[in-house]
């Protein structure tokens, strides 16, 4: 039996407390009124705005329109026309296309006068836009960390089910570690569901999902958005929460049954509990691939309701699947270093590291397939997704490629390295951080746009959920023998050698 070391327990509590403080600070820092934002903007952008107005005025006077100034004016004009400001992606689309298609205005004089008049309106709209983004910031930080850790446990659950369904001979020795990690699914999904309800009910200025605003599907409203209106059959808060509830309940039920049968197998006289788990794994994997796809549309893709991608579900799956396998490897190495798991040898670690390597490449393949297809065809309605990311998230967007692809590719390609604890742990830390950034890149551009920063709210949320994750997982590990007995493949697993 494993005993939860008091040091690790204290560490997890410290993380949770510091994280909770960080989350609180995030909400406290978020601007309360639009005036706050105008003040912030005035402080930071005043120089830029003043120069802009001056330049426009000067142009109008001198009748000498320089090309760059002209394009800027065109941009200002067309952004005015956007109905709702909440979807930053749309905003960007018009921005970039406007520059390209801006017709040469014949009447410079009237054009300039209009522009100056629009300037004030535009400032106000801009402030409102930034206001929503800054209010979203602590929510988005919480959301990213919460979904990341919850999906790690889902990824481990999928891996566990695959091991059962494939009758893998090497992994039964690690089943209790995997069960420990999936124990986070219950608390994780409860918190996550609360966050979804918070978004649906707009608690505390939560505007993570633009389409949840009733005005965008109201043809009478100035915020009316026809594209979202046409999707309202799917994008409705009731349907959204009901689907989420069904998916989470089934996942948790499957996890509960898996664990129950696995414990029963320890003392069983026959293989009946094992066979139940085998059948359950087959059912779960079918359900999982459907529900995973739906959840990726709902929980992640719908923050950008104007954008869609067909391989998105697979892409999200690869991201959390590799994170889950990495967590299995890291927790196994931790337990092994503490003297538990005596039958785990370097061959088991080698296999896990191979999975980390292979699925990292798989993730990259999907990332690139999605990126390259959209980049190549460059259709404005879908390319905005990457335009915003490359413009405002250059470092995280390309940085994660280095973390999630190049680093594992070069480190984990070597057979000998895959057996070394420190190499696997180092690669694991990099992969996990890289996939947190991956989720960050999926959620943030649509919710906080160019106001992103990895500061106190983001690190606080990450620390809170990490602390909770450690606490729940290691508590669960103490509740059953760390090596399962009675599994028909356990002997093979104990003597697994590669």
């Amino acid at each position, binding site marked *: 039996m494993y005993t939860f070391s008091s040091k690790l327990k204290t560490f997890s509590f410290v993380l949770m407390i510091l994280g909770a403080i960080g989350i609180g600070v995030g909400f406290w820092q978020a601007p309360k009124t639009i005036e706050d934002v105008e003040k912030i903007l005035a402080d930071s952008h005043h120089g830029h705005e003043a120069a802009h107005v001056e330049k426009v005025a000067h142009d109008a006077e001198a009748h000498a329109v320089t090309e760059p100034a002209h394009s800027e004016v065109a941009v200002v004009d067309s952004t005015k026309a956007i109905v709702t400001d909440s979807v930053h992606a749309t905003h960007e689309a018009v921005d970039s296309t406007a520059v390209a298609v801006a017709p040469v205005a014949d009447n410079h004089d009237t054009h300039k006068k209009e522009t100056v008049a629009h300037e004030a309106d535009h400032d106000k709209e801009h402030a409102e836009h930034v206001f929503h983004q800054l209010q979203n910031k602590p929510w988005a930080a919480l959301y990213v960390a919460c979904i990341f850790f919850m999906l790690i446990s889902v990824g481990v659950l999928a891996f566990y089910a695959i091991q059962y369904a494939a009758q893998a001979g090497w992994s039964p020795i690690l089943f209790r570690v995997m069960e420990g990690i999936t124990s986070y699914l219950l608390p994780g999904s409860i918190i996550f569901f609360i966050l979804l309800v918070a978004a649906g009910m707009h608690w505390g200025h939560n505007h993570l999902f633009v389409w949840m605003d009733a005005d965008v599907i109201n043809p009478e409203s100035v915020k009316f958005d026809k594209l979202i209106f046409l999707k309202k059959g799917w994008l409705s808060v009731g349907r959204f929460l009901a689907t989420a509830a069904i998916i989470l309940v089934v996942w948790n039920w499957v996890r509960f049954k898996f664990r129950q049968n696995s414990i029963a197998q320890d003392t069983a006289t026959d293989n009946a509990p094992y066979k139940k788990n085998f059948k359950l794994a087959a059912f779960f994997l079918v359900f999982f691939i459907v529900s995973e796809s739906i959840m990726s549309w709902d929980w992640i893709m719908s923050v950008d309701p104007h954008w869609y991608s067909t391989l998105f579900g697979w892409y999200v799956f690869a991201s959390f699947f590799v994170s889950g396998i990495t967590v299995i490897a890291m927790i196994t190495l931790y337990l092994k270093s503490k003297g538990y798991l005596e039958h785990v040898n370097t061959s088991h670690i080698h296999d896990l590291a191979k999975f980390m390597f292979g699925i990292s490449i798989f993730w990259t393949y999907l990332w*690139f397939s999605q*990126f*390259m297809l959209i*980049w*190549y065809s*460059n259709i404005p309605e879908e390319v905005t997704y990457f335009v915003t990311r490359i413009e405002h998230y250059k470092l995280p967007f390309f940085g994660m490629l280095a973390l999630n692809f190049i680093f594992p590719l070069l480190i984990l*390609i070597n*057979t000998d390295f895959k057996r070394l604890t420190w190499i696997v742990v180092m690669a694991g830390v990099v992969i996990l951080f890289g996939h947190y950034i991956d989720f960050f890149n999926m959620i943030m551009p649509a919710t906080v746009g160019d106001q992103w920063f990895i500061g106190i709210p983001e690190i606080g949320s990450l620390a809170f959920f990490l602390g909770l994750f450690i606490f729940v997982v290691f508590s669960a590990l103490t509740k059953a023998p760390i090596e399962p007995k009675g599994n028909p493949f356990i002997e093979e697993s104990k003597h697994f050698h590669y």
Partner: protein
Amino acid sequence: MSNKVIHAIYNDDDVLMDAVKQTRAAHHHIEEIYTPFPVHGLDKAMGLAPTRIAICAFLYGLVGLSVATWMMNFIMIQDWPQDIGGKPSFNYIDNMPAFVPIMFELTVFFAAHLMVITFYMRSKLWPFKQAENPDVRTTDDHFLMEVGIHGNEEELISFFTNTGAVEVKVVDKH
């Protein structure tokens, strides 16, 4: 000095593995072992050095990647930077996503083919090569261990008979 070798023939891979371990323990030098199929762990038991072919493949892959990059940079960017369907041909990185499929394939192509050719060269395999089987049964169901004779011939023969060999022959090697 005549080049005499012993051919000890076995009909079971487990017996062969034991025999290899005994032979190594008795410090007889194993010249070669012929088996009809790969025997797991035989290389370790014989004390053969691990293969370096994976390292070769990695380096060949880098060559392939360099060739692909150089080729497309020269053709598409340097030599004739045409506007083809609006793709940015100002510099390599601007248009890189379009080149990645070729970069990937050439990396794999070079790694795979050059590694295979390396394997053929190092193991001296080519068409019309004279087969080197000392005994045709080694391609079917027998295992043959070849050990050089550097001492008492009688003693060696009895040693190999005791390791479970079904047949022990003394052969002149030319």
